[in-house]
């Protein structure tokens, strides 16, 4: 889940406008983009890498560690299943608005195959100084700088702001893990927290949550066991709660998911929860002071 230089990246949807633009940016930062997929353009070369009809075809020729999905919502399920069948270890799904029934199938298939899904609806992952996969300004050195803070964020824009604040405060990042804004994501806050806990380069963690779901509460259970300091900001304190799911939603979440529940769970686990994004950098500066 943390990108390491040299890891080979397959881009599904490489020939599209966004696929092309961001593949170039990834390459500029040093990410090893080694192949692309577009069923209609198989056999061509795009941005200097070969284009294949499918991920399965691509990995027969060129083994890949990760695949990144630049494919529209209605075609995303088939593209991701293709990547899973190709044996890629990690699939970064940028696509937003994939039908929920398709997302259920994607996660079930990934689980069986032992494949990690990041997203859907993620802005991607960045390892400053090594590379990035996705649609983040990973190449922008005013925003991302190598260092020791691991950043977890559901949102790309807010995550970018946090990294920028950290960089300006003199705190570089060991990794940015964009986990995605969709309700059902393959890599949860807790999964990302565990990865950063294991990562030797990470000394402290900025955890950016959002209201809705119970991922922050579940992450808090793990945070309790950690020695690395964690600062957290949870967006959505002033947003009205989503009541769409009625009785069934209340039965399943049992009252968790709101701002107060998340803040309380995190604070009880020893996490420093702050009120504005800039305070994340201040809180983590304090850790080193």
């Amino acid at each position, binding site marked *: 889940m943390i990108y390491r230089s040299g890891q080979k990246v397959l881009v599904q949807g490489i020939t599209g406008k966004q696929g092309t633009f961001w593949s170039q940016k990834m390459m500029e930062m040093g990410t090893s983009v080694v192949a692309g997929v577009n069923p209609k353009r198989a056999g061509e070369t795009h941005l200097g890498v070969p284009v294949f009809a499918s991920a399965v075809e691509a990995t027969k020729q060129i083994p890949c560690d990760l695949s990144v999905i630049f494919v529209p919502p209605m075609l995303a399920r088939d593209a991701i299943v293709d990547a899973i069948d190709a044996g890629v270890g990690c699939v970064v799904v940028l696509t937003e608005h994939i039908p929920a029934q398709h997302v*259920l*199938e994607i996660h079930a298939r990934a689980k069986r195959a032992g494949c990690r899904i990041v997203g859907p609806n993620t802005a991607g992952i960045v390892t400053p100084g090594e590379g990035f996969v996705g649609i983040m300004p990973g190449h922008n050195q005013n925003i991302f700088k190598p260092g020791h803070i691991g950043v977890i964020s559901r949102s790309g824009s807010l995550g970018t702001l946090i990294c*920028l604040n950290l960089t300006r405060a003199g705190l570089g990042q060991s990794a940015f893990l964009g986990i995605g804004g969709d309700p059902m994501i393959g890599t949860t806050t807790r999964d990302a927290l565990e990865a950063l806990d294991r990562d030797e380069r990470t000394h402290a963690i900025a955890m950016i949550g959002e209201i809705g779901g*119970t991922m922050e509460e579940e992450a808090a259970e793990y945070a309790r066991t950690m020695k690395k300091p964690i600062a957290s900001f949870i967006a959505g304190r002033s*947003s009205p709660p989503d009541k769409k799911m009625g009785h069934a939603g209340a039965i399943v979440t*049992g009252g968790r998911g709101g701002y107060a529940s998340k803040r309380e769970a995190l604070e009880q686990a020893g996490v420093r929860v702050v009120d504005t994004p*800039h305070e994340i950098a201040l809180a983590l500066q304090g850790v080193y002071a």
Partner: protein
Amino acid sequence: MKLEEHAAKSVVLRPAGAPIGNARLCASPEEVAEAIRAVGPAVVKAQVPSGKRGKAGGIKVADTPEEGAEVAKTILGMTIGGDVVARVLVEEKAAIAREFYAAVLIDVANRSPLVLFSTEGGMDIEEVALDRPDAIRRHVVDVLEGFGEPEARAMLRGLDLGSAEAGVVDMLARLYRIFRERDAELVEINPLAELKDGRVVALDCKFVGDDASRDLQPEIAAAATPDKQTELERRGAEAGLKFIQLDGNVGVLANGAGLTMTTMDVINHAGGRPANFLEIGGEAYTKAEVALDLVLSNPGVKSLVVNFCGAFARTDVMAEGVVKAWETLKPDVPVFFSIHGTGEDEAVALVRDRLGLEPYDLMEDAVKAAVEAAQ
């Protein structure tokens, strides 16, 4: 996409072969009286998307056409959960032996479908869930394996359903098929009634469809209750923007849902009140011009925060849209910018040169200035 009871029954349950009561949709006391002449003693039920209709007095029994007309007069026009009742469903009064609860929904935490069943259905199911969680059976489904009658039977093992068991098993299997084939986020039957004659019938149905599947489910999209919208929200939706009008006085224009929510939070933290939520994330970042028009059309707006942090979204493109709209609309509210990320240098130069404004380094400071200006 939410369906009201009558639509959930006619568009979803009936085509799936799930047993439902004999009912008519009516819009006037006269129609209700007429319906009761046809179906006999009936339950008259307000048709609104919110739950808790019974507790709000929106569900009443009527044994005669005259009673039906009287009951209809009280229910029609009533406001439940912010919705005015325009129609009632007149459904034949069932001889209920027991009330169960059944639902199939997306269990977000498990990334799986979840089937719920309880023998204690009815209005107090949420209290049952809180006080005695064991009274609700839960079955997490492996979506690649599916959920049919054998799984339903296994899930119900040990419950004393008696002669109702076959009907419940059949209903659960049908609900799961509905969930999968109709792209549901939730299909819920409360109560699922065992009648005195032994039949198992869905007396109510709540259906929430997946917005992302609108194109796959045109019939559901057409039957869905339209979202309650203000005029500005409707204009936003037409432009492909999710705009929510709030009652504050600080307008918000930011990119991405996360940064937008955060800007609203910081406004609150600084002692102000946001005037709107507006999402221009993803591809919508090119719509900054129409977005600004929306924000400024909100009559409550006394000042404005523009907070951009470009990752995928290019701040130069957004700033160009904002500057253009500003020059066209010439609004007289003060605006406070904070701009970082992709395209930052060009965006800052645009705002500086064309509007003569200096963006704030920290969004917190831009927000603070906007909150002060609004007071």
